[in-house]
């Protein structure tokens, strides 16, 4: 491919202009988008439960599995957990198992999954009495915390 230097320069100039245009658009929208990010972050921080905090809550946690069908069939979850995910939103099983004394913690498959946060946020809107929170780190964090506790208990 033989491009003249003038063509190269023109192309790079256009690339630079496109990058700047995207920056201007992001800057103009920033007051709105940044506000949304900040308020979502503060809500997520409020709802999150760390693995250490989870161990402190005790054994009577009502676990909610927010994973989709394919993930659940591929990997077993926490024993006794009820299923609630955004694909098939049905709070029936959760409300049957719930009592005000039982803390509700939602989890999903990995440290980067977001289904648990979304389900906890939706529960906060639709069933605020449940006071659902979500587990940071998901199922791997639960396994790690339990095995660490098991080792510590020996």
């Amino acid at each position, binding site marked *: *491919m033989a*491009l003249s230097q003038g063509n190269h320069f023109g*192309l790079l100039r*256009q*690339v630079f*202009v*496109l*990058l700047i*245009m*995207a*920056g201007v*658009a*992001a800057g103009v*929208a*920033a007051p709105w*988008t*940044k506000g*949304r*990010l900040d308020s*979502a*972050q503060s809500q*997520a921080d409020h709802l999150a439960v760390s693995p250490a905090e989870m161990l402190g809550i005790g054994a009577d946690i009502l676990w909610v599995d927010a994973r*989709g069908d*394919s*993930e659940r069939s591929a990997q077993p979850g926490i024993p006794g957990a009820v299923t609630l*995910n*955004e*694909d098939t939103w049905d709070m029936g099983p959760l409300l049957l198992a719930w009592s005000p004394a039982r803390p509700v913690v939602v989890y999903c*498959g*990995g*440290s*980067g*999954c*977001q*289904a648990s*946060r*979304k389900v906890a946020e939706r529960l906060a809107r639709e069933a605020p009495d449940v006071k659902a929170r979500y587990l940071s780190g*998901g199922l*791997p964090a639960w396994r790690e915390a339990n095995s660490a506790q098991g080792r510590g208990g020996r």
Partner: protein
Amino acid sequence: MSKTRLFGRLLLAFMWLWASLAKLSDLPSFRASIEAFQTTSPALTVGLSLYVPWLELTLAIALLTPWHRASLLLTVLLVSIFTLALVVAWSRGLDLSCGCFGQTREKTNFPLAIIRNLLILLISVPLLLHRAPKPSP
């Protein structure tokens, strides 16, 4: 202009439009997706989550204009970076939702996501390298 090349550009424009609107409609999830890669500082994560969707939207629009080659060049660069990030995350054994096209409920299937990105490159690189023949005098 060949209809195939026009179709390729329209396909890429639709892809960027979809990716940007999906991210803009749920920015907190996109930020969480970037965080899950565990490679950026908190400030850079916020910066990227505010900038990348708009860059994608700009690329979608530019693909339909005479500046489409610049958009194609950025498409190749951006998709290559995304692919590298996926490869690194996969090699580190991270479980994450990449948020590439807004889907954040299921964990990313790394081989599929990488193959998808390679297909995007397979479309965009030939479009970028193609030069229209100069009209004969």
